[in-house]
């Protein structure tokens, strides 16, 4: 009887969600084995630290789709993981996944952890995902970091909702109508 119970317990452990999540079938189909092992190690680190793994998976799949060499994919995934760690340091351990992802991108765009923390305090309900995404978009569009930050932080202090932030971005960086697509 005891042996049956122990076997049952072992079977349950092997079928646990953590064990099932250790290998992502999407990666197995798209990455070579050496790259996959290193990407999965990064995923495991993210899991252990309570960070979201999907941005890492998507970065790896993007690299595979674009035909990037394995070391470059691994480096890009490691950068995303580092960005997420910095984002969580800035936002705190209870940050929502969307907020973490947006904060990681904003930090990469030139925001400081202090700026992220400030946005957390002033944004309506502390939801920073869209304000930080708009900040990142404005910087990516060529706006200076301090100017982009001032625009977004001012709107946050006034209590702007998500749609207001998106309108702000469209006003400051209008899409060029009928422009030709950018060549790679």
């Amino acid at each position: 009887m005891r042996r049956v119970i122990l076997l049952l317990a072992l079977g349950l452990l092997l079928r646990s969600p953590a064990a099932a999540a250790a290998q992502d079938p999407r990666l197995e189909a798209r990455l070579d084995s050496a790259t996959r092992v290193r990407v999965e190690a990064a995923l495991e680190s993210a899991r252990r630290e309570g960070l979201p793994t999907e941005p890492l998976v998507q970065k790896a799949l993007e690299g595979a789709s674009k035909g990037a060499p394995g070391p470059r994919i691994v480096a890009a995934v490691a950068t995303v993981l580092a960005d997420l760690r910095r984002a969580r340091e800035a936002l705190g351990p209870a940050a929502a996944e969307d907020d973490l992802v947006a904060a990681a991108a904003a930090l990469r765009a030139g925001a400081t952890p202090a700026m992220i923390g400030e946005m957390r305090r002033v944004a309506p309900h502390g939801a920073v995902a869209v304000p930080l995404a708009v900040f990142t978009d404005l910087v990516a569009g060529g706006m200076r970091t301090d100017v982009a930050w001032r625009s977004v932080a001012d709107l946050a202090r006034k209590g702007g909702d998500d749609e207001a932030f998106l309108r702000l971005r469209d006003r400051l960086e209008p899409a060029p109508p009928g422009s030709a697509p950018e060549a790679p």
Partner: protein
Amino acid sequence: MHPDHRSGELPDPFIERLAAQLREPVSLSPEVERVVLDRLRTRPARRRWPGVAGALAAGIAAAFGAGLLVGRWTAAPSAGVPSVRPVEFALRMPADSAVVLVGDFNDWNPAATPLHRATDGVWSVTVPLRPGRYRYTFIVDGTRWHRDPAAPRALEDDFGAPTSVITIAQR
């Protein structure tokens, strides 16, 4: 739909007869009844598990069950889960023969989301998306990567090809 299943029809006599038989109590012989009762009386004493192994197995089973339930709760749609919105992606490429969309929402899979061509040379597709931030790009004729000219450029082009970004706000 079969006519016999419509509501308001008279019940089938055969079904009624069968149901009446099933409603009759089943009588057991005194010997069978005695054996069953003996088994029921002795079962609790025989189900005692060894203390440590029993506690271990019960704990693991409880944790596993809780994990399954949590997984179901988080995967199932609920009032707190943001709603999906249809989002149209479009690209004007009148001289090309195929355009596909790849991005964070389809695992960057070139086979997942082809665009459809209208007569004016604009290719488009509508994708259901939850609120969030997504990076994406178009692949034209299977070889050329084009970012969306109507959307912000993604800052982090780690792999050299142009990428766009879309932010879907909560309503």
